[in-house]
């Protein structure tokens, strides 16, 4: 990570739902043009962390800064302005069923940046081409696409506005290993080409090794280890070791019964 101020700075972030405390003081930095991947088991609060940064969930306590600006207490309009810096690839794609593929990709340009539809369509088709999809796919509806193609379209939508920060929520979940590798490759290529910062969450270790510059592990509502991806096999942290090797025995105890 470079010495300049981080692109995203998270400090002492807390979030609970009812009596369940999900995030218990998360501190995390994402550097400029850096790809940080947060790993952790299911239900550890990875998605809550991501959605807190995106403004979809309002944290109970703590601060989130984007380019030095506190984004927790923004008005709806200011939030929309900050969100123009973001691109997001959702776990299930979250493509709009009521719009054809090209309009899904062009959505941020047409609605967010108020670009004329014809102009936005040209860019959308370029972005589709950059994820390996032809112009003919642009005229299809999301329901007509396979899971892998939907992920590619969602990736094209995430990069269409050339965002400064891209978020990836479990980008390879539900894909076969080959398609997962294709998506990982596209993610690396797109992020590098844009020079964007990336914050991803996943529990797919092959994805982590391919797309991460740095890795952070979230456990029990806190970041328990952060380090370069090259160090992940020698982290010296038994939680990280258990997680990356996928062992049932270790300090992380899965609750089998409710």
């Amino acid at each position: 990570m470079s010495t300049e101020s981080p692109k995203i700075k998270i400090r002492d972030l807390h979030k609970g739902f009812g009596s369940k405390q999900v995030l218990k003081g998360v501190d995390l930095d994402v550097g400029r043009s850096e790809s940080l991947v947060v790993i952790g088991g299911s239900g550890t609060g990875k998605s809550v962390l991501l959605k807190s940064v995106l403004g979809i969930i309002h944290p109970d306590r703590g601060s989130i800064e984007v380019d030095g600006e506190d984004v927790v207490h923004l008005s709806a309009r200011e939030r929309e302005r900050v969100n123009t810096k973001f691109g997001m690839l959702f776990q299930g794609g979250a493509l709009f069923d009521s719009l054809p593929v090209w309009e899904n990709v062009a959505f941020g340009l047409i609605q967010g940046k108020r670009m004329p539809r014809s102009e936005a369509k040209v860019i959308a088709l370029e972005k589709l081409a950059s994820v390996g999809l032809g112009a003919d796919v642009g005229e299809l509806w999301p329901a007509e696409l396979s899971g892998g193609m939907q992920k590619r379209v969602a990736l094209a939508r995430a990069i269409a506005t050339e965002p400064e920060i891209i978020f990836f929520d479990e980008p390879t979940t539900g894909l076969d290993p080959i398609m997962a590798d294709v998506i990982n490759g596209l993610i690396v290529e797109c992020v590098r080409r844009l020079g964007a910062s990336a914050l991803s969450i996943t529990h797919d270790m092959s994805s982590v090794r391919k797309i991460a510059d740095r890795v952070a592990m979230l456990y029990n509502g806190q970041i328990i280890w952060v380090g370069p991806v090259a160090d992940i096999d020698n982290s010296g942290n038994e939680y990280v070791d258990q997680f990356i090797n996928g062992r049932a025995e270790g300090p992380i105890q899965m609750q089998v019964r409710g």
Partner: protein
Amino acid sequence: MNFLAQIGRMFLLFLESTGRIAVFAVSSLSHCVRPPFYPRLIGRQMVDIGYYSLPVVALTTLFSGMVLALQSYSGFARFQAESAIATVVVLSITRELAPVLAGLMVAGRIGASMAAEIGTMRVTEQIDALTTLSTNPYKYLIAPRILAGLTMLPLLVLVGDIIGVFGGYIVSIYKLGFNPATYVKQTFDYLETIDVVSGLVKAGAFGFIVTLMGCYHGYNSRGGAQGVGVATTNAVVSAAILILIFNYVITELFFAR
């Protein structure tokens, strides 16, 4: 004691839901009058609510007008008041039947589909996706639907008024043997502007209720397919009940002496 606690809990839940719906309604209305506007989406919703509901509303009001004439005749004949049929048909249709029946039919058709569509968007993270694409879901999803409901229901009811009165006319002329000119004259003799206007005001209120309930329950649905199913049911049932309650309230406001 347990029973009383349960009643108390239900009452608090009711108050909580009422508060949530009120906040949602105010927030939705405020987004209806502040830019950016989405004319393309408003137009699409207008066609969906107005144009595609026309056959349902037309058939409902046509047969209601017809049965009203038939029932009135068989009832009024007992005390030689058949000449009042035209007035009974036109007043019943314009003041009550057209707005209430159109509201209930549209609640079933539009309220359910809105709750299902927005609910599915919620559980598949499409609403979150809108937020990340710098688009306010209230402005993009809710405001166009509410504006279309507010404007299209009165138009539907106006058409329903005409078709309902026409239904009464057909039965009166071709089945009951009334004189056409006399029937038309009697129809307009006792009809006042307030009769039609009150029906249209009701229609506007019902359009708001139906779209608000569809959007509210869809927007707040949780937990996959089952959650969407519950949202759809709640949207239709709550809209139907609110239509009947507000029908009384608006009638009271217009006609209570």
